[in-house]
């Protein structure tokens, strides 16, 4: 919790890791690079979710709302006005934040907690998915293709994977920085206090409604940035791929498996889960419909049963 615990090897190891990661693209093939981009990307999304779901303890299973708003906003602005996604990304994130404030206010003002809050967030994501599905102006069910203009840094478009690799790595580090800062500030203490005991937090002068909404807004903002990255990387978005329940679950899952409310949980979760789902898919094959999902699900259940607090607390104990 307090910075001093991460002294010595705990500072040096991450720095070495970072240097290593910076040079990785020189040595690996496109597929591995793609794998790593996904790992960073999901670690980033997991970390964004972690602020609300992990630190502030409000279980959201509807982060697709914010992810999709980010992806759709920057893409629509790019298609219709030619605005560079570098600006669109922030407009999308701001919009997602405003939406987060709205959802947060509505849910928390009426006292929604734990699974009830989770249901509300799912409902909002579904509303957005259905809107995106039926409104032709935003692409309807076919979704949107991001027009490819070739290698163009200004337009956030690259033919090679390397630039995406570095952007994804940068985003992951950024999210860790944000979480580190909040962890070592009053804000983070208040988030944890609300998670641990909301009544006690109120009694000590914490405006729990305000801080829960704030956590939602920050989390939404960061998640939406990830949405734009996804759109630029894949160059195609559709309603289930942006607002769908699976998206929301994938965002939350990495952190829940890795360890909620910890800075390394989402990173660890993503390094374990993202390759796992890829490997299972390639070994079993996506073709035999559903089998891969069953195996994936079984592994998740085992992890949840054996390590209910996620993997990271065990790793931390091991190093102590």
């Amino acid at each position, binding site marked *: 919790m307090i910075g001093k615990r991460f002294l010595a090897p705990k500072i040096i190891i991450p720095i070495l890791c970072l240097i290593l990661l910076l040079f990785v693209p020189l040595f690996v093939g496109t597929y591995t690079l793609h794998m790593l981009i996904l790992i960073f990307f999901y670690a980033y999304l997991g970390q964004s979710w972690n602020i609300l779901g992990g630190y502030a303890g409000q279980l959201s299973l509807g982060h697709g709302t914010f992810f999709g708003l980010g992806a759709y906003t920057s893409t629509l602005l790019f298609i219709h006005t030619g605005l560079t996604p570098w600006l669109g990304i922030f407009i999308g994130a701001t919009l997602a934040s405003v939406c987060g404030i709205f959802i947060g206010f509505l849910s928390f003002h009426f006292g929604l907690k734990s699974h009830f809050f989770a249901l509300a967030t799912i409902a909002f994501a579904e509303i957005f998915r259905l809107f995106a599905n039926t409104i032709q102006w935003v692409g309807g069910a076919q979704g949107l293709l991001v027009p490819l203009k070739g290698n163009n840094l200004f337009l956030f478009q690259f033919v090679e994977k390397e630039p995406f690799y570095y952007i994804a790595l940068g985003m992951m580090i950024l999210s860790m920085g944000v979480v580190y800062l909040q962890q*070592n500030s*009053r804000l983070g203490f208040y988030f*944890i*206090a609300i998670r*641990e*005991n909301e*009544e*006690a937090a109120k*009694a*000590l002068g914490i405006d729990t409604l305000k801080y829960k909404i704030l956590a939602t807004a920050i989390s939404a903002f960061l998640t939406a940035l990830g949405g734009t990255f996804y759109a630029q990387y894949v160059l195609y978005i559709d309603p289930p791929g942006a607002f769908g329940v699976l998206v929301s679950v994938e965002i939350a899952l990495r952190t829940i498996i890795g360890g909620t409310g910890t800075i390394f949980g989402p990173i660890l979760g993503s390094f374990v889960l993202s390759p796992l789902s890829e490997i299972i898919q390639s070994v079993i094959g996506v073709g035999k419909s559903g089998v891969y999902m069953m195996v994936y699900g079984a592994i998740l259940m085992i992890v949840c049963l054996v390590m209910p607090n996620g993997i990271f607390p065990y790793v931390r104990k091991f190093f102590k």
Partner: protein
Amino acid sequence: MAMLEVHGLRKEFGGLLAVKNLDMQLDASEILGLIGPNGAGKTTVFNLISGFLHPSTGEMKFQGENLIGLKPHQVCLKGITRTFQTAQPFQSLTVLENVMIGAFSQGRKLSLIREKALEILQLVGLSEVQNQEASSIPIASQKRLELAKALATKPKLLLLDEVMAGLTFTEISEVLSILKKIRESRITILLIEHVMHAVMSVCDRIIVLHHGEKIAEGNPKQVAGEKSVIDAYLGEDFALA
């Protein structure tokens, strides 16, 4: 001027009248005991003052300012902090971090808040366990942690809900000496307590509640001698003692 003024306070839960037209006054630096049998409405009075519940009717003023309609955190920021009957620690945080949460109402600077929290841990005698998880310390220490968290918010008025319940005789006398220290720093205390010898020794004044109604008020001696109080709460043994 009275620090806390309560007039005609009334709280109904459906058909149940929990607090019935309570009048109460607290002067600065006073320790006022609130006693009475289980279900007398003592904790409800705390919930009303601290904003966790809203009264059906009545007036409450703190240093001349209206308290009605304020939310719990607003009441706390005005200078009234409560503790809970069953300790409510932030489980996964350390003892020190628990107290820091309270101290953050005084500012944002981490190092400063840490120092303030350490001072308070010293005062309540929890310095030795400061780095242990709050859930891992014994109940007696958790009760003191409740007190420490509340103190960290720099209250002018402290509402203590049974901070001595379930403690041993020695532990109680330790808490009593802490309370006396707190009073020296000019903090006013409203105390709910069942441990009678503690109440008698530390309180300046006592109010006795029974079925949500005030049945007696006065200094410990007067109250202990009153027949209605003996009948409703203390019993013959204590009166003779």
